[in-house]
C-alpha cells in the first residue's frame, strides 16, 4: 500500500501548488488582460467596424463592416491607399538603412570596447551608451537644431566647401538625387506605372528623403549604444580558451572574428536584428515631436504616425486600427523571414552550437 499511496498524495500537492501558483500570477494576468489583451481585441474589433469614436465600441455604437477598412488601404485606389503606401515606403527605407547599420556599428563598438588593451574602457562604454539613456524627445529636438538650414552640420560642411541641404525640410529622395545627378530628372516611362498600392515605381524607388536621412542618422546614433551592450555581454561569454585554440590553429585576427566570434554571437545577432526590426517599424516619437506631421512632402510619414493621425485627427478609427494591424502583420512576417534566414545551415543537428535558439 505504501508503495501506491504517494501517487495521489503527490498529485494533491501538485494541485495545491498549482493553485498557489495561479493565485500568485493572477494580478499580473489581470493587468496584462486589462491593459493588453482587451485593448488588442478592442482594436481588432474597431478595425473591422465603423466605430465613430464615441463611447465604448463594444456597447453597440459600432457595426461590423467586414474588411472595408482593410480594402480601402490595400485596394481602394484613393488617397488612404496612397498615404499608406507612402508611409510603408518611407518606413521601409528607414528599416533598410537603420537595422544593418546599427547592428554592424554596435557590434564594431562592442568588439572595440571589449579589448583588454584599450585604455579607459569604462569611459568609452559609458560614452557610447549615453545616447540610449537620453529621452528620444530631447535627442530629436537637439538633432532638429543641428540640422537646420544654417545649423551646425551645414556650417561644418561649409568649411569643406559643401553646400549642405536643408535637411529636415528637404523632401527629395536620395536615389532621386543620385539619378538627377546622372541626368534622370523625371520618371522614365517604364517607372510611371503604379501597379502596387497605387504608388508609381518611380515613387517607390525614391529612397529615403533627405529629411528621413536625419532620422536614420539619429536612430543609429541613439540605439547603437543599447545593442553594443547586448553584444558586449555576449562577447564576455566567448572564453579565452576558444580564442587561444583558434590562434594555435593559425587563424588570423579577421578569421578569428569571422569564423569563431561571430558564429558564437549568433543568438545575440538574432536578438539585435529582431529588436531592431520591431523598433524601427514602429517609428513614431521622432515624427510626432518634429511636429510637421510626416512632412516635408509626406516623406517622413510612417504607418504608426499615419494610424495615429487617421484616428485622432480625422476620426477614421476603423482605418487607423486597420493600419496598426497591417503594421503588426508586416513585423511578424519580417521577423519570421529573418528567423528563417538566420537558421544554421549545413551543420548536422546534434553538432549545432545553439540548439535551443535557432530552429
Amino acid at each position: 500500500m505504501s508503495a501506491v499511496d504517494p501517487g495521489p498524495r503527490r498529485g494533491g500537492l501538485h494541485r495545491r501548488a498549482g493553485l498557489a501558483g495561479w493565485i500568485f500570477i493572477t494580478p499580473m494576468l489581470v493587468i496584462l488582460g486589462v491593459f493588453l489583451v482587451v485593448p488588442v481585441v478592442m482594436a481588432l474589433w474597431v478595425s473591422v467596424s465603423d466605430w465613430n469614436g464615441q463611447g465604448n465600441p463594444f456597447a453597440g455604437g459600432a457595426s461590423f463592416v467586414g474588411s472595408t477598412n482593410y480594402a480601402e488601404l490595400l485596394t481602394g485606389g484613393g488617397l488612404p491607399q496612397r498615404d499608406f503606401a507612402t508611409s510603408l515606403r518611407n518606413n521601409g527605407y528607414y528599416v533598410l538603412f537603420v537595422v544593418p547599420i546599427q547592428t554592424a556599428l554596435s557590434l564594431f563598438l562592442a568588439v572595440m570596447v571589449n579589448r583588454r588593451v584599450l585604455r579607459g574602457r569604462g569611459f568609452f562604454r559609458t560614452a557610447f551608451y549615453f545616447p540610449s539613456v537620453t529621452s528620444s524627445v530631447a535627442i530629436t529636438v537637439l538633432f532638429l537644431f543641428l540640422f537646420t538650414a544654417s545649423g551646425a552640420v551645414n556650417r561644418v560642411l561649409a568649411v569643406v566647401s559643401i553646400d549642405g541641404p536643408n535637411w529636415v525640410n528637404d523632401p527629395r529622395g536620395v536615389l532621386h538625387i543620385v539619378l538627377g545627378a546622372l541626368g534622370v530628372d523625371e520618371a522614365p516611362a517604364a517607372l510611371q506605372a503604379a501597379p502596387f498600392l497605387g504608388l508609381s515605381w518611380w515613387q517607390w524607388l525614391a529612397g529615403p528623403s533627405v529629411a528621413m536621412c536625419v532620422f536614420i542618422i539619429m536612430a543609429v546614433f541613439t540605439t547603437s549604444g543599447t545593442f553594443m551592450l547586448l553584444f558586449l555581454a555576449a562577447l564576455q561569454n566567448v572564453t579565452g580558451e576558444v580564442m587561444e585554440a583558434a590562434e594555435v590553429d593559425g587563424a588570423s585576427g579577421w578569421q578569428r572574428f569571422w569564423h569563431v566570434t561571430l558564429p558564437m554571437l549568433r543568438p545575440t545577432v538574432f536578438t539585435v536584428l529582431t529588436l531592431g526590426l520591431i523598433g524601427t517599424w514602429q517609428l513614431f516619437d521622432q515624427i510626432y515631436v518634429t511636429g510637421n506631421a510626416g512632412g516635408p512632402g509626406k516623406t517622413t510619414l510612417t504607418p504608426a504616425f499615419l494610424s495615429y493621425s487617421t484616428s485622432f485627427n480625422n476620426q477614421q478609427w476603423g482605418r487607423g486600427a486597420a493600419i496598426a494591424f497591417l503594421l503588426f502583420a508586416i513585423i511578424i512576417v519580417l521577423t519570421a523571414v529573418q528567423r528563417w534566414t538566420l537558421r544554421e545551415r549545413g551543420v548536422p543537428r546534434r553538432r549545432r552550437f545553439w540548439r535551443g535558439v535557432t530552429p
Partner: protein
Amino acid sequence: MSRSARRGSAVGIALAAGALALAACGGGSGFDEGTGEDTGGDEATGGAELDVLIGSSGDAETQAVTAALEAWSTETGNTATLQAAADLPQELSQGFAAGSPPDLFYLSTDSFPAYAANGSLAPYAAGLPNADDFYVTLRDSFSFDGELVCAPKDFSTLALIINTDAWEAAGLTDDDVPTTWDELAAVAQTLTTDAQVGLSFGPEWQRIGSFMAQAGGGLVDADGQPIANSAENVEALTYVQGLLSSGSAAYPADIGAGWGGEALGTGAAAMVIEGNWVIGAMTNDFPDIPYRVVELPAGPAGPGTLQFTNCWGVPAGGDSEAALSLVEYLTSGEQQMVFAEAFGVMPSVESVAGDWAAQFPEQEPFIAGAEYAQGVPPIEGIVDVLADFNAQLESLASGDPTAILDSVQANLEAIAGTS
C-alpha cells in the same frame, strides 16, 4: 449588525459602485438620447457644471477665457471650468471615446466636418439669438448639410505684412503698395537682396490658396462642387511658381525660418503673407521690427484671401440651457471685443466690426478681408486632402501645377462623393 455582515454590505456597495461606474463608461449612447433636457431644469436655477476645453495660443488667451468663464459663472450661478489642451484634437478624441466629451470646446474648421458627419455635435447654433450676426463666410465654414452647427468664436484672415525699414531702404513709397499681381512681383523683385527675399509664405494651401481665390478659383464652387483643377487655379499656381523660381519669393524653411512671422522678424523676408496672429508674435519676439499691414493684392478676378476660424463645439445631446447661455455670452460682440484686446483675434460678429477697426486701425486690412475671404470647405476627409495638397506644394517650384491640381481634384471628388 455583525462585523462580517457589515463587511458584506460594504462589498455590496463597492460592487454596486463598480457597476455604476461601468454603466457610466458604456453610457455614450444614453448621452445621445437627450439627457440634456433633464438637466435643463436644474440649470434654470443655476448650479450646472460645465467643462470647457480649449487649444490655447498662449497665456494671454488662457487668462482671457478663464476670466470670461469666471464672470459668466458669477453672473448665472453655474460653474464653468477651463482646461487648456496641449494637443486639442487628441484630447477631444479621447473625451469622445471615453463617452465624456467636454461640454464646450474649440473645434477647428479642419476637424469640424469629421465630427459633424459622425453625429458628435449638437447643431445648436441656428437657435442662437445672434446667429444672423456671424459673417456669412464663417457660417458657411460651420454648416453641415445646410444647417449651421456651431458658433464661430472669432476669426483671422490673411494680409500682406511689410517690413517698413526694408521697404524704405529699397526706395519704395506708399504709392508702391502692390494692388495687382504684376505690382506684387515687381516690388518683391525690388526688395530682394543678397540677405533677404522680397516675399515669403508657407508651402501650404493655407497661404497659397489666397492666390487661387484672387484668380477666381478655389477648392470648391458655391455649390460645394470640387473645382481644384480649374484654369483659374492653374493660373494662380503658375504665378506662384514664377515668384518662387525668380528668387524673389521663398518658403520660410528655405530661408532658415519656421514660419512667415519668423522670416519677417529675422529680416530674411521683407514681406510675408500671414494672418493677424503675426501681430502678437512680432510684439513678443521681434519688437524692434517696424511693419505695416496691407490687404493682399487683387488677382485677375479681384481681391481674395483665406480665413481661419474655430467654433464653440457642443457634443450631441449636450445642448443644455447652461451650455447655450455660455456660448451666447462668449460670442457676444462685447465679450469678443475683450478677447480681441487680450489676444488679437477678430470678432466673428459683424455688429462690432466697426468698433474693432476703430480700435485697431493699423490692422484694418485684416477685417476688410472678411468680405471676400474663402474658408476650409466643410467636407468630411478634407484634412487628408489638404495635407496631400500641402505636401505637393512643398515642391511647387519644380513641380507641374496642372498635375498637382489634377490630383487634388481627384482627391476632392472622392470625398465630395461620399459626404
